[in-house]
């Protein structure tokens, strides 16, 4: 600074003017950003509420299906496991199988076809094995996830494997 004192006054003032101006603009910019964030955060949380609720629903590890033990052999019961559809199949041979009903291709809900003894997705023709959930033909890239099934006299308990 000692060098600058010899310069004419108008030149000495200029850099500090520019500095205060820059500092002011920076502070205003930060305040503006903070303000925008304070407005945007509640709106984001408000709009995200259903997906947050679905997330907490997805934390479900067990579902009890009351009276589902009465499901006749060769038929299916659709139910919700957390936020997404799932199915409980009572096979002709008496086996109980439960798996997710969301196609691994593009997320359509699949259906159990007892006559053909297969699980079929009508959207793009994907086919799964109704005992193992394995993707048999069509576009699905992965098998359907199986759940654990426990049948008792009051209902059926389905839990994450």
């Amino acid at each position: 600074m000692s060098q600058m004192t010899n310069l004419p006054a108008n030149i000495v003032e200029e850099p500090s003017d520019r500095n205060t101006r820059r500092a002011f603009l920076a502070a205003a910019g930060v305040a503006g950003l903070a303000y925008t964030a304070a407005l945007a955060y509640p709106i984001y949380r408000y709009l995200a509420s259903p997906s947050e609720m679905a997330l907490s629903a997805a934390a479900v590890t067990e579902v009890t299906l009351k009276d589902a033990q009465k499901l006749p052999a060769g038929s299916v019961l659709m139910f919700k496991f957390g936020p997404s559809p799932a199915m409980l199949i009572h096979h002709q041979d008496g086996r109980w199988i439960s798996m997710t009903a969301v196609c691994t291709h593009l997320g359509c809900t699949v259906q159990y076809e007892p006559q053909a003894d297969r699980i079929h997705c009508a959207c793009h023709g994907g086919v799964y094995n109704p005992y193992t959930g394995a993707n048999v033909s069509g576009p699905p890239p992965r098998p359907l996830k199986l759940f654990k099934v426990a049948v008792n006299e009051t209902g059926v308990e389905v839990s994450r494997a």
Partner: protein
Amino acid sequence: MTTKTAAIYNWVDERLGLSELAAFARHKTVPVHSQSFWYYWGGISLFLFLVQCFTGVLLLVYYRPGAEAYESVRQITFVMHFGWLIRSAHAWSASLMIFSILVHMFSVYFMKAYRKPREFGWLSGMALLGLASVFGFSGYLLPMDELSYFATKVGLQIPSAIPWIGAGMANMLRGGPDVSEFTVQRFFALHVVVLPAVFLPLLGFHLWLVQRHGNAVPPCVEALPPEQRKSMPFFPNFVRKDLAMWLISLNILALLASVFPWSLGKPFDPLAPAPMGIHPEWYFMSPFEMLKLLGFVFSGKFATVGEIAGILLFTLGIVLWLLIPFYDRSKESGQRARAAHYFGLLAVFALLATTIIGYWTIR
């Protein structure tokens, strides 16, 4: 500007005429005088209307009209994150918008800004105020709680006092003889489709007129020779101050909405008695109280006469108010100008007095 941005600007300018707009903004000025403060209230009203649109769309994301109306508002208020804040901001900005429109209207009135060539500005502004109050009335029912149920019930009694056609009209608005889920469904259609569809073009017309004729100055400034009048550039000076006003309004709104969240009453029940201390929103308090006072004057056998007389008197007052630009036309401050001034003072006094009496006598 670098050559590239200049090229992009020129490309857009050739197609949209940006430089004409910029030239227009450069030449536009706003008068500066002791009453300039009142110029901001139209802008504040506009800002609060934009807040209404924005928060309204957010509420629309979860609101369900009809039989589920109350349940969906309960969800918005207590289940969705910050739903209470969005709803509160919508309700508070509605109140603030009506308030700032009223301030805007009275400032225009007392500055005599309705005179030639601004008659259409006055009329379209009054129509916007009318629509804003219908917005308020119809929106008030949508939560379907106790208060909204009785407010709508009482409010629709007023048109039903009109001889011959009144009862039919009220039934048509209600969708039946009593306020029900049919009412909330049609009020919803009115509130989010019909009213915006009418309000927006009218608002565009109003703003276009403001641009076309510029800001009016009060008669005392108009009397000055041109060299003594001061003005500031519209852009950026006035716009900057306008935006500062918007920011202040937003802060006041945020404060009110978060410190005094809008409540949700019990679900409506047609068999429950009206809750104690029930009263209309502040902007309906004055007409409500005027009708009530006239009801005291004409009681018993003459009650219907009183109601009809009240509606007639009220309508007459509004018609006179609307027609003021055609009565008080001359620039010279003659007898008519003074009469209009006193009429304005009387209106302010009547509105304030009846509002105060209304709140005073809440039981």
